């Protein structure tokens, strides 16, 4: 039983496929998918996270509809060579710190983010510790 919101999502923006309770989308179509969700009541960005699958990074976004108590999950996969994905921080201010943390720990570059720099580690730190191939130098 895929939710009604996923069907509407599929017509409006060309996302890859709907499976189970989440939607796989193309990274570049993330902003307009997010805007579409925001107009249909899913106006609460809950969580952004990423996981390192050796040849690609899988980013997971969850949104909530506070009125009808329903939430939606979007997933996008980004290649390891150029981990680029458009930033949501100009639509939701809440995404600002979470994207900076993913840039800091995972090395994913969010295009359009106004001050994308390390948030949790100090500036001289080389490498992104959350990646699978990170060797602990100290």
């Amino acid at each position, binding site marked *: 039983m895929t939710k009604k919101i996923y069907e509407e999502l599929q017509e409006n923006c060309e996302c890859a496929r709907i499976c189970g309770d989440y939607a796989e989308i193309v990274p570049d179509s993330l902003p307009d998918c997010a805007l579409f969700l925001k107009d249909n009541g899913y106006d609460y960005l809950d969580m952004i996270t990423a996981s390192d699958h050796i040849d690609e990074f899988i980013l997971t976004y969850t949104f909530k509809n506070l009125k009808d108590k329903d939430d939606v999950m979007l997933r996008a996969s980004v290649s390891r060579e150029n981990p680029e994905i458009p930033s949501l921080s100009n639509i939701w201010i809440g995404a600002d710190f979470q994207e900076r943390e993913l840039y800091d720990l995972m090395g994913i570059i969010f295009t359009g983010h106004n001050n994308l*720099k390390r948030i949790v580690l*100090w*500036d*001289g*730190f080389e490498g992104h*510790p959350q990646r699978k191939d990170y060797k602990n130098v100290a």
Partner: protein
Amino acid sequence: MEINPQMIPSLDDADAYEGNIVEDLRRSSLEPLPEKVILSEEELKELNRNIIVTTLDDAINWAHKASLWPVTCFTACCTFEFIATSMARFDIARFGMEVLRPSPRQADLLMAAGTLSWKMAPQIKRIYEQMAEPKWVVAMGACAISGGIFQDSYAVVPGYNHIIPVDVYIPGCPPRPETLLYGLEQLRNKIGHESIRLENK
């Protein structure tokens, strides 16, 4: 870690400046610092033959013991065990310690409570250097002694003694208030043995 004036950064590259300090502190402090010198029994006896110094020692040590003012510089979970110790039930005000001086200039005990990350290490070193001279450090909790449960993390200093000389180690994660009071009692015994003649040895 002296701060030469012309290197004070402008506002935008302050983070890079702080990053360099953290990096070279991280490379320079890989082994723990040597322990502070305390008198063994026979050294104490040899010292006691000189009456004038011992009575003065005892008076000063008594004053140091009676009023240890901790500086409020708490990092992590052990903070709340120290706060619980300073509350009504396990009251450290009985030992005259409840005057929590916020500024390091007026305090003489650095309660190193909690995990120390590399980004916080230069700040702790600066606070320790800002404190006025007869100062002591208590490493409270497993993270403060040896990095504890986070020892193999890339961002955690394996113990405060890599950065600042530590006087008393209180084990526990977090140590119970009774353990903390016992540890502070040991610190007071240690202060009792110190002598003004060996101050800068």
